[in-house]
């Protein structure tokens, strides 16, 4: 395997057979509870009318965004984006507010709704299998895929590969590599024969969804300081005015 500067996946929907080996592999590798999963197969819909039918399958897990919204949203900084790709989550910091779930445009983070305070209810999501990728193995989901619909490698190389595939079969693929730019770029790249919306992927701009809120947040302190100053000024002014008025009134009374 070539040296990987930026870990990424490429999912080719034309190859995926919805066998769910990746799901089983992830659950076993990461010891996921029997009633949970970090990865799921979406968009299993059959469209069309017999016999003109089409089917698209999408394997969905964390996109490992370049500008993760989960990370931007988390009040206590439980998320980390590694320089080489993976977005990870630290349960030791999490307060369980589930804002990250709201923030993630892909609906990726999941929460332990079934745990009380003794077990502790946490967030879970795909970790990119650091225990594997930093030990020379592919992520569990990728490694097992019987059709190589899921591949793993360096982001730039996978983007190049995705474009090559599309160029080689322009009749087959939608002319777009999802995740190359969406939401500011993701480390999970997708090519498909059916529209991405049919695979359940949101239509996202090239700017990450956290852009506006981060800008607003950056204005908070300056705004608070100026607003405080304005209010103090007003208060002082009013106070002065009232005092003057009172004195004036007093004087008026005295002079009466």
């Amino acid at each position, binding site marked *: 395997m070539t040296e990987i500067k930026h870990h990424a996946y490429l999912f080719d929907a034309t190859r995926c057979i919805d066998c769910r080996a990746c799901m089983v592999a992830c659950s076993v590798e990461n010891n996921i509870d029997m009633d949970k999963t970090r990865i799921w197969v979406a968009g299993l819909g059959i469209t069309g009318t017999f016999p003109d039918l089409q089917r698209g399958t999408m394997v969905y897990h964390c996109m490992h965004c370049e500008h993760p919204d989960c990370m931007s949203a988390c009040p206590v900084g439980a998320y980390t984006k590694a320089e080489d790709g993976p977005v990870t989550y630290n349960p030791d910091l999490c307060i369980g507010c589930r804002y990250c779930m709201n923030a993630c445009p892909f609906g990726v983070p999941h929460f332990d709704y079934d745990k009380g305070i003794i077990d502790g209810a946490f967030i879970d999501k795909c970790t990119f299998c650091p225990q594997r990728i930093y030990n020379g193995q592919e992520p569990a989901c990728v490694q097992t895929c*019987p059709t190589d619909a899921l591949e793993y490698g360096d982001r730039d190389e996978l983007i190049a590969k995705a474009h090559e595939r599309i160029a080689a079969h322009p009749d087959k693929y939608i002319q777009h590599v999802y995740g190359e730019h969406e939401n500011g770029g993701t480390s999970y790249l997708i090519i498909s024969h059916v529209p991405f919306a049919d695979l359940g992927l949101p239509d996202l701009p090239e700017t990450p969804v956290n852009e506006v809120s981060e800008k607003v947040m950056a204005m908070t302190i300056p705004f608070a300081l100026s607003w405080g100053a304005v209010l103090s000024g007003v208060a002082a002014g009013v106070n002065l005015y009232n005092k003057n008025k009172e004195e004036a009134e007093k004087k008026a009374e005295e002079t009466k």
Partner: protein
Amino acid sequence: MTKTISRRDFLKISAAGAGALALGQMLPAKVAQAARAAGHINAEGDGFVHSMCEMCVWRCGLIAKVVDGRVVKLDGNPEHPHSRGNLCPRGQSGLMNTYDPDRVLTPLIRVGKRGEGKFRQASWEEALDLVASKMTEIKNKYGAEAMVFSSTHNLSQPLFENLLYAFGSPNYGTQRSLCFNAMIVANTMTYGMEEPGRIYDDKLKYILLTGRNLLEAISTSETHDLITAIDRGAKVVYLDPRYTKTASKATEWLPIKPGNDLAFHLALLNIIIGEKLYNRSFVEKNTIGFDELKKEVARYTPEWASPLTGIPAETITRIAHEFADAAPHALAHNGWRTSNFVNSFHTQRAITILNALMGNWGVVLTEAGSEESGALGAPPQPAYPRISALRLDGVPWKYPVVPFKIGVFQELRDNIVKGDPYNAHGWFISRQNPIQSLPDRGKTIEAFGKLDFIVTVDIVLNDTAWFSDVVLPEASYLERYDPLLPVGDKVFLRQPVIEPQGEAKSALWIYKQLGERLGLGDYFQYEDEEDYIRQQLKPLGVTLEDVKAKGYAEAPEAAHGGESGELTWNTPSGKIELFSDTLAKVGFSGVPTWDEPPQPAEGQFFLLTGKIATSTQFGTQNNQLLHKYSEEPRMWMNAQTAAELGLATDDWVEVTSEVGQIHTQLLATQAIRPDCVYMTPGYGHLSKGLKTAYGVGASDSAVHVTYTDPISGGQALSQTFVTVKKA
């Protein structure tokens, strides 16, 4: 597709049973001594062990990760040609079969009524003594033939066969007549081999799949080959009344009318021969019976086939042309479980012959390496006793061309019920679930009722074990040794990753113990499992330790094929037999011929069956991981048809055939012909010993009517017609 409220409720219930534990919380610790001795596992109980999957018959190579003496992960072994580093979902979930909380871990002896599920635990001594004494009693009273044996393909099967042949019974039921008898017998009659290997190289341009749902009925490496071929731009034409996942990836899907694949293929032969599109030099040199074939297929024009198949004549003609243009880089895939109708043998012959005519031998087809490598050794053993009793399954007196070791299982069952030509009294079953896998479940249970003694070797209380008198727990495939598996120029090893849990034992051990108790010890001349494998390895000059380390040993492939470059076949004529004298002599047509399949009456549907990726047959529905990722089984019906009948998705329906009735939920979908319904096999278990699977779905076997192809002996599963109404 649709919201599945019921599924959610159902999962809530089952989740309550299973608990929301992660896998790791379920695994009891067990250190594998053998693996530790081999140095795979360190003092902490951590390491990697190479072995082989047994979640289906494909047997992919795997590498098991062990932590603290527990298997925590399986990965595909990149060096194994069947897995190439990948595992399918069943293979991935394999450790959950091993750690299934419902595993049977001690021998069980029935105490309640049959089928009541009341057992008591027993020691191996007691259980084996009981089995041996019952078998001996039956043999002494009624003859060895009164004892029936059956088992489904697995690595210890040669030892199982040892047991039955040494015991002296001719009655052997294998899964093959339930599976691909039509294909094997057709290939044997044509090429003189059971199944040629298929070559998916870069040049392969055209693949014709007849009901081989390779993208759901997975064989890891071949599934990968097919997807890669499609990706490369090979054209795939797929015949199936259902829009399966294979259909969705195929270049062209032809929703053929069930049972009429024969007409389609005869029409292809008609064009290819009529328009002289075949490879003349190959046909002249390597085949016999071309003229008879030509004469026969002359009447099967595409126009004739069109109304039968529901495929336009032009399409059939076009496909014949395309196939011929692509030849020899064109493959007509035989398919596996193509026992759909009583005419399936001819369908298979037509497919096989189509390949032969195109001269694609050596290009897309090749002689497949046998699983019994000539290069391996074996313990010495005496000759088997001569058996004179007739077989209950009618081979060969009723099924003259069905090979002995394959048999006609459903006929065996029918004749147990009939007591014809004699009564059977005992049944020894290993690694098989005939209560579910044979058609007409009620009849199989009836057959059980005729018997004095039934013993089953399994790893869980499957339905068959549930109805047995003694259950012998085998160690799971991650806990045991099995005989070696030759693949290409290597032999692969299955070795224990962990120690067997409870009292479970390997089949090698169980059969030897029984053999000795039956006075047949000479047929089991090995000390233990390792000794058996050492004897197998002897001619190769490799030590078991070497094999354990790598998981395989190099073994020169037994030479086959003519050295001179001349192709020869193991048929009576030494050629590819387009016309088979053997068939003609026993009164069958020597060339494929049209045999009209029966039609459902007004208001009836063809009942189709077929695999899904997340289960194997009838034995993995209790695997909690697979259960977790499978959809709730529902009966497919074409959405328009359903609407006409006033039925909607999730409605409960009553499905009735000649032999049975079931209730199941409906899935209204576009993905099936209007004249068909489909059910996923393997649900509706009877055994309450399968806590995860019990109560889920309904059994198609309960409504399947037993039909048998008179030539190959294969069961005809799509020939069952059912009525459907709101329950």
